[in-house]
């Protein structure tokens, strides 16, 4: 957000001048951690992706074979398709619901703290506990959802085993689970909007809808951009919901790219293949994020 502009100023003064030196000092631990714990392994997987390696015997260099094989791997393509679907639905729907909730919660009413806490609770609850509850909700036999639908005469659905419903069911749980984080960030964004701007708009005769459309929403775009990036990257890496909810194993309708990577690396003794898949995912995420960053000049308004 504002980091973009600050870095420009920093460069103007020279990276080691005054403030910059302190910045470098404070950044060092994080950068070191990133280099050792992230950059190192990431580069290692690049090397591993060019090998046939079972983790237990010496790797054999195979060039781009893993990448070529992935292109014609049915299961990988299904995993990619499912992951795209998951992202395409969960990010926009999740953000829209979160924004709506944040607007509703940005009010001075009694018990607001309690309500805000309630929405944040799923975020700090373990996915295992959440998945257990949702398994019961989705249960085909006597699940909560089917019982409620039954009251309205709607026949029971096999939420998690019907290939058409399985992924949407998992997405619904994920959105609910991740809502709290986005709501909190949106709330912070809303509260940073100066009241005098909204007051001025009111004086000029703007109604609630116009105030939202022309004042609140433009000033909230940096926040939307930020939550969008986090959600986008997180969605492409979806794993835990699949791991716990898709029983006993993900099917063709629910396998995602990260699950595919885990399965190949640790179950099928194909670490090179898994590394190649993770690089393809990395490139996809990087490309989407780059396009998203590039797009911000068109719709994100910094104050």
């Amino acid at each position, binding site marked *: 957000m504002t980091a973009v502009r600050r870095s420009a100023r920093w460069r103007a003064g020279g990276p080691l001048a005054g403030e910059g030196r302190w910045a470098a000092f404070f950044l060092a631990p994080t950068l070191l951690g990133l280099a050792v*714990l*992230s950059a*190192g*392994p*990431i580069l*290692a*997987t690049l*090397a*591993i992706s060019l090998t046939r*390696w*079972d*983790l*237990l*015997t*010496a*790797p054999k260099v195979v060039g781009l074979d893993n990448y070529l094989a992935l292109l014609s791997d*049915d*299961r990988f393509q299904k995993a990619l398709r499912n992951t795209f679907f998951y992202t395409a639905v969960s990010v926009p729907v999740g953000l829209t619901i979160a924004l709506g909730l944040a607007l509703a919660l940005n009010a001075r009413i009694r018990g607001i703290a309690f309500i805000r806490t309630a929405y944040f609770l799923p975020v700090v609850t*373990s*996915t*295992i506990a959440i998945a257990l509850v949702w*398994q019961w909700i989705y*249960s*085909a*036999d*006597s*699940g909560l959802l089917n019982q409620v639908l039954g009251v309205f005469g709607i026949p029971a659905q096999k939420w*998690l*085993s*019907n*290939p058409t419903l399985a992924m949407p069911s998992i997405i619904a749980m994920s959105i609910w689970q991740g809502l709290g984080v986005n709501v909190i960030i949106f709330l912070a964004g809303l509260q940073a909007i100066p009241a005098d701007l909204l007051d001025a708009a009111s004086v000029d005769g703007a109604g609630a809808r116009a105030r939202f459309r022309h004042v609140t929403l433009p000033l909230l775009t940096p926040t939307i951009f930020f939550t969008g990036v986090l959600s986008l*990257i997180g969605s*492409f*890496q979806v794993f*835990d919901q699949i*791991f*716990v909810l898709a*029983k*006993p*194993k993900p*099917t*063709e*309708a629910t396998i995602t790219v*990260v699950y595919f*990577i*885990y*399965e190949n*690396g*640790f*179950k*099928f*003794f*194909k*670490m090179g293949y*898994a*590394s190649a898949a*993770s690089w393809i*995912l*990395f490139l996809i*995420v990087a490309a989407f994020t780059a396009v998203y960053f590039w797009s911000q000049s068109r719709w994100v308004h910094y104050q």
Partner: protein
Amino acid sequence: MFTGRSEPGGTGRRLAALIGATAILASACGGTTATPSTGAPSTSAAAPASQPATSPSAAPSDAGYTGPEATISYSIWGDPQEIKNQQAIVDAFHAKVPQITVKVTVSDWEPYWDKLQTSIAGGDAPDVFAMDGPLFPDYQTRDVLLDLKPLIQRDGYDLGQLADQAVADFTTPDGQFGLPRDLNVVALYYNKKMFDTAGIPYPDDTWDWDKLVAVAKQLTLKDASGKTTQWGFYTESTDMENFWSELVWQSGGDIISADHKTSLVASDQAAAGLQFLQDLIWKHKVMPDAAITDALGDAFEQGQAAMEANGSWLVATHLAAGLDFGIAPLPKGPAGRATSINPTGAVVYKGTKNPDAAWAFVKYLASPEAQTKIMELKASLPANKDVLNGPFATSFDGAKVLADAIAYARIKPSFKGYNDWTTELQTELDANVFTEPKKTAKQALTDVLPKLDAILASQ
């Protein structure tokens, strides 16, 4: 509740998997990059050092260990009950051989294998660890297991005291790479009360497939609205061991060729076995489908199914559930009688610094003393024949049926690439044969066959 994610779907392992998922998630959620950390590249090729120097001074006899003091690690998967039991065995061993201390580390089924692989890759594997029969070749062929043959010969250890198929599962042309610790067979459980209420005689060794279907139909009850309130039959379709490999053998088919290069599941006989299972669910409607099982768990254990074809690992769970049940042999198929036997082995890491101590412990695990403790747990059958055919056979109602089943049991397929191959096959079966009857078994198996053989070819 959760149904088994594990390969051999046991309830204990199933529960364990649930808890174990936590551990995975803890690590899975930590990362913000798209890449799994596969460890530093320098940790490649584990290179477990040289053949162990079997010190000539050490240990001749079965019980006696005269080597130096040693601490060895022993890794297992298991549920809390199993862990307690293994710890008791370890304690008894230490009391007998005070020079050796055994440290037990326990994981749940899924993370067990993840951890094992990374610890071997890092050259830091446990000295002794539990090995699932079907996955054994994936490790043995990668040269990370110690050949016990020299030690067996040195001590004159008699392999004949252990169940033959179970021993053979860890034998290769290169040597003997483990001893069976315990084993499981599959049989037919029946709920005595449901049979008594319906006035139907209990299943016995005269039963065949037709009889199974006929009785299962009689014992499937519906309420006024047509909802099934009691199922005649239950099994798990998500792993071959629970029932479908047995059906394939009973109808004269086979799973994979002896050289592990050709998949045989698409033959007419093999397909007939899988078709029988699909028919139990979708044609005869005597067994709950996967969606109901996902929700309900083990219908037999819930007291909602009259019969269950499943593994001997369920005895303790069914007893704990308070069921009044009996055990009969699996019904005969068109080609006769067959069941599945699947041992868990104790294997030694090739890079161990204490091969003698590890071997002494592995021997102890297979000894009548330790095997009696395994028998008491009722979570699997002892691998030691003295215990198996002696005290075990009378240890609970139906135990003899299980012990006798070994005579006609076939080993659960065990080959390199097992996980990859079964995932491909089971995904096809689950989606198109069992969860929904979109294809006949023959059609699904024919469709998936090229992929299966491609996996075998790539091993």
